[in-house]
């Protein structure tokens, strides 16, 4: 019986590797069943199940939170996302990164004011010490 090689990987780990009779996944345009010698295809995946029909008729299920599916005549590659991705979520993440940078840049003024405060403190201390000395000499 014809089989197809199937790799399911995410950026953080390898999820599945083996041969299958058929791979069923939820593409952006609908359910996809990939049998051996399928035409080359590349599509985005929606969050959902990837079902792998193994040679013995056994089935394995994997949940992916989105990703890509690439089909070559004898190979199916699922590049699963590890995080839930959506345009607005990504944008929120980008905004956070920008805000973080701005915060770090704003910190510079804080660091500066700390240094200024320290300088002023040192000055005040020196003045106090001078006063103390003066007082002692006056007492004598």
């Amino acid at each position, binding site marked *: 019986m014809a089989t197809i090689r199937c790799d399911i990987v995410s950026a*953080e780990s390898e999820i599945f590797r083996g041969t299958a009779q058929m791979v069923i996944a939820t593409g952006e345009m609908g359910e996809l069943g990939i049998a051996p010698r399928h035409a*080359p295809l590349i599509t*985005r995946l929606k969050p959902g199940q990837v079902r792998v029909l193994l040679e013995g008729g056994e089935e394995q299920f994997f949940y992916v939170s989105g990703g890509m599916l690439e089909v070559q005549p004898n190979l199916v590659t699922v590049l699963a996302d590890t995080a839930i991705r959506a345009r607005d979520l990504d944008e929120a993440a980008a905004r956070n*990164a920008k805000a973080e940078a701005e915060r770090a840049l704003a910190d510079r003024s804080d660091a500066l004011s700390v240094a200024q405060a320290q300088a002023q403190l040192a000055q005040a201390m020196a003045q106090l010490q001078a006063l103390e000395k003066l007082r002692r000499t006056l007492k004598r």
Partner: protein
Amino acid sequence: MAGAREIRTKIKSVHNTRKVTGALEMVSASKIRKAQDLMRASRPYARAMRQVIGHIARANTEVKHPFLVAREEVKRVGYVIISTDRGLCGGLNSNLFRKMLREIRSWHEKGVAVDVVCIGQKATQFFRRLDVNMVGSVTHLGERPQIAQLIGVIKVMLDEYTAGNVDRLSLVYNDFINTMTQKATIDALLPLPPSDDIASVHGWDYIYEPDAESVLEHVLTRYIESLVYQAVLENLASEHAARMVAMKSASDNATKAIESLTLVYNKARQAAITQEISEIVGGAAAV
């Protein structure tokens, strides 16, 4: 015996320092292994990704994505700089920053502005003081960095690139070669270097769902993300390795310091005893 007492306190404090550096060394040694495991686990994805990119490069893609097209005029360049969050790791960060500073200077001489995004506390603290435009930053990734933490900074840069603000994008990190060696590395990210394969020998193309442009965009973005993620892991392993080596030499130095201090202490003690005896003998003779 006032001197001897001071020396004894000093010896005790060096002892304590050595305890701390010894502990840090052992912690780092165990963390290197974990970081290397993470690196290994992320490799299959990168391999599969490269395969897909290779297939795309060979196929007759009907659209040319901006990530694949080199721009002739370079007015502004972008860098993704990866550093550690914590110090005590020898010259790891400073070597990287020095290399980066040279790069920035050479761009400035050509009249090209530099944008950076920083990953890690040390880079954020360092580059905010420089004459570069910091557009994004993320810190405290922890021992198990996840792609989700990096999406934001990467998107900031990719958006800049797509919008045409940045004409070139590079990745700056410490490459983990082995425990003793880490190499400060600057890799080109965008535009993607052209593949060596002669394009479209087969003359086939994918079926794209929903359409070539958005699929390509998706693949290339994920590819860049996986490259940055890998670099973060390399840098993490480098951090632990560098810290282990730094702490080992600190422990060795502490041992040496203790030895020489002990010698000085014994001499001081001996001198005090000798002096005491000679005083007693002198006193007895006087009587």
